[in-house]
């Protein structure tokens, strides 16, 4: 009798631990995406300054600038889904990279302190987003492992938890960030 009660108590505790752990892991995924969101917002906030500074010095890069302005407007529109935000960031990264390349043709802009500051803050935000994406992927992997492995899989089935997709690594995450490439390409 006592043994049966003991087994029930142990099973109950194990059940609570597994249940809480699954909820914790799901929350970790949500938190990890929030971190990406914060970093993206920080990056989008850099754009007005960047555009204004570049505008003062460049005369012939209208297309590139208008592309960045357009992307910034989209970023400010709000109501974007997570995928849309990430897609927007991908396009922005590519456009701003293009813009940085053209800076080579404008020595005055290249030497401008404000621009240099923006350039390093942009590089910083790029690495921070890469770190946040890796954190998100680690949280998703952890969550997927928890819901697919026994005995978590039983609880996950009852709680209707589904596996999530990790974010594909961007080119920037795969390679080493090189100062040469960022500033002198």
């Amino acid at each position, binding site marked *: 009798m006592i043994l049966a009660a003991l087994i029930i108590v142990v099973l109950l505790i194990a059940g609570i631990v597994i249940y809480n752990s699954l909820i914790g892991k799901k929350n970790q995924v949500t938190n990890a995406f929030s971190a990406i969101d914060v970093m993206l917002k920080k990056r989008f906030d850099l754009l007005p300054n960047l555009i204004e500074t570049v505008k003062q010095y460049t005369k012939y890069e209208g297309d590139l600038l208008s592309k960045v302005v357009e992307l910034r407007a989209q970023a400010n529109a709000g109501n974007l889904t997570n995928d849309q935000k990430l897609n927007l960031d991908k396009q922005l990264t590519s456009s701003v990279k293009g813009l940085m390349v053209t800076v080579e043709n404008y020595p005055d802009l290249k030497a401008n302190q404000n621009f240099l500051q923006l350039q390093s803050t942009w590089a910083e935000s790029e690495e921070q987003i890469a*770190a946040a994406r890796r954190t998100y992927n680690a949280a998703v992997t952890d969550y997927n492992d928890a819901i697919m492995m026994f005995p978590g899989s039983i609880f996950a089935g009852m709680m209707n938890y589904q596996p999530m997709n990790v974010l594909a690594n961007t080119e920037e995450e795969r390679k080493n960030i090189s*100062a040469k490439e960022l500033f002198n390409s």
Partner: protein
Amino acid sequence: MSDPINASLQSALTELEIQRKEVSGVRIKSYSFIAAGIGLAIIGFLFPGLLIAAAIGGLALLITGIVFLSKATDKFNSYRHEFKQRIIAAALKTIDQSLELEYHSGLSEQAFINSRLFAQQPDRYSSQDQIYGSAGKTRFSFSEVHAEYKTVTQTKNGRQEHWHTILKGIVFCADFNKNFHGLTLIKPKDIGSALGAWITDKIPLFSTSGKELVKLENPDFDKTFVTWSSDQVEARYILTPAMMEKLCELDSRCRYTISASFTDSCMYIAFPLDKDYFEPPVFKSLLDQTTLNEDISLIRFMYNIIHQLDLNTRIWGKE
């Protein structure tokens, strides 16, 4: 180390070699007197008829030996001072003009504790031979450290103290090239740390230190180290895939697994070592440059960490 030691260093070595011979001569004398004194004492015990003569003779020899030993210590201190000021300091300049040596000072105990490299607080601490300077834009320093903690056990003979080494080796500190606010720790993965990490991961209730286990993607890094951080994103911001590879490479060049911490805008690395560096030889010729070459190799190794870990790349908003 294969690089040539310049001519001025060579002439300083030749001058110091005379001093070394003096030190070794006085030491040998002192050891001989002490040994003879002990020998006489033994004879006195073996032959009771000679006890008084042996005791007087033995005592005289012992006192002479101790006088010589004290003289040898003075001479050695002066020789050691010259060695560090003239040889090591000059050797530093052959690597980089900015490098300086302060052999009397080292990493302070508080700085060692603040580095958070080791959770155990030291009960006995000493540090010396601080070398500092810059490699490009990055300021760095490193010092020899010996930190120990004490445990006390009660035996039938009373209390017994046991001293355990926390670190005997070198602590390297460099200004990190990225801004960060929290704490990230990289510890060698041994059975204890791996078990601690596993328990914290499976039962998060046991995580009480305010640091979380960080699971990183690099299998080699994960095999060698356990990473803890107060901020998961910040840990990955610091430990980029490239940085993880470089730390693994750095570790592979060391006999014992390194530990690292990132706190207060600095990067600290602890290198456990078997021997003391930057100490002059007494019974081995200074002109045989093996010892000096080992010292220079170590300094160069520390200096090259900045380049190896790419700490001079300052594109992330930190000058």
